[in-house]
């Protein structure tokens, strides 16, 4: 089971191509509001995470996710299931 920091690092790595203004990625960063990743790109990012961890992340699970930290938590919960 990957650790919290490993998931955060992986998300940061996958976010890079979408973070076009190269803003610092913090756990408190709003994925859409601060990093300016559009909704379609967020779903593309989720598919990358699904394939990396071999999990299914239904769209409704991430509809409440606003920040990078919340995404880390959501992935952790799915990995524990």
């Amino acid at each position, binding site marked *: 089971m990957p650790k919290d920091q490993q998931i955060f690092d992986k998300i940061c790595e996958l976010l890079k191509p979408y973070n076009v203004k190269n803003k610092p990625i913090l756990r408190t960063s709003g994925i859409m509001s601060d990093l300016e990743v559009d909704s*379609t790109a967020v779903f*593309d990012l989720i*598919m990358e995470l699904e394939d990396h961890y071999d999990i299914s992340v239904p769209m409704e699970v991430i509809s409440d996710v606003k920040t990078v930290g919340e995404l880390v938590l959501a992935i952790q919960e799915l990995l524990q299931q």
Partner: protein
Amino acid sequence: MSGTGGADAGGTPGLSIFSKYDPLKQRVDVVNRIGVDPFNMTFDDIMGPTRGRIGNREIILAGTNNYLGLTYDEAARQAAKDAIDRHGTGTTGSRIANGTYVEHEQLERDLAEHLGKPSCIVFTTGYVTNLAAMAGLAGPNDVIFIDADAHACIIDGTRLAGTTTVRFRHNNPADLDKRLARQAIPEGGHALVVIEGLYSMFGDIAPIDEFVEVAHRHGAYLYVDEAHSYGVFGATGAGIAEEQGVLDQIDFYSGTFSKSLASVGGFCASRHPEFELLRKVMRPYMFTASAAPSNICAAQAALDAIKSRPELRTNIMARAAQLHDGLNRMGFDLAAPASPVIAIRRPNEAQAAMEWNWLLKEGVYVNLAVPPGTPQSSSLLRISVSAAHTEEDVNAILSRFRALKDQSGEILNEMMRKIAGG
């Protein structure tokens, strides 16, 4: 500043109910400084399937999704006029109340027959069709799988269904295969895979035959939206599923009247006779007014044309190939091989908006398409070809794009000046 009443009533001080749209407003302001608002423009007149007018300028319409050009077809217009004379201008009722006329039922029978399905239900719009059918089909234990480039009405359909939804990579049956295997389906539930035939933004075509194999191997139902391909593809116009030889295996087949069928409305047909039961559960079918008789009868006439005039499909494919080839030779970055939807990738939203305005000024109307409504966060100049376009029309469109390319330096300079407020 107006509109902060909510703050006085207990909202966040300094913010109005519209404040969440501030980032959008910034984008809109940039586009408005560049020129006409591409998402709120009006023609002073529409004279035919390929011609409009703004002021005293005639505009070639190349972004109307009027694929077969039947909105001005003599038989379709006459059918609509006769329907108004017979039944008035509207039904004032839903399909489950007083809103089902014999013409609605006749059209359902004829569409079902064309698609070789035992059941077909007609809806008030194409958007409503997918909302209604998807939410009616998928219950709490079912899982919907949608293509990554799904149209907004399919995404909204999953929201109305309220079920687990999984997204798979665009036009990739192998990726669907993987995700169907990965996602557990709850006890008593089923998988519903939703794809489109021709994707409306890039104009790329789905390998429906491969999706049929993958979906059915997993015991999933396959729902295909052929809004942009019905009437245009297939020997009889029954779409890409017909062209790929799998029409009979499609579980649910949806379409719209607002493209090839030259009207307003939508339909969903099924190879499962039990689909008829959904008339009693689909809220967007039950609780909205039915399509006006004139719309239904115009669609009926257009359906007759689709079945009896294969030359319309020959024309549109020839014009699409001509336009795609011409743009390709000029070096434009085209999103997909030739089809009636041709999308040109532009470097960014502002430049695309500037070029859209320039083309309109030069007498050609295309669509501006920007994120998040586009795949891969693309900014696009999107063209839809019509069977009513002539070879000369396409040459005229190509000449404007040639001029756009030749004058790109000046156009960009003008854009920078306008954005800067000069």
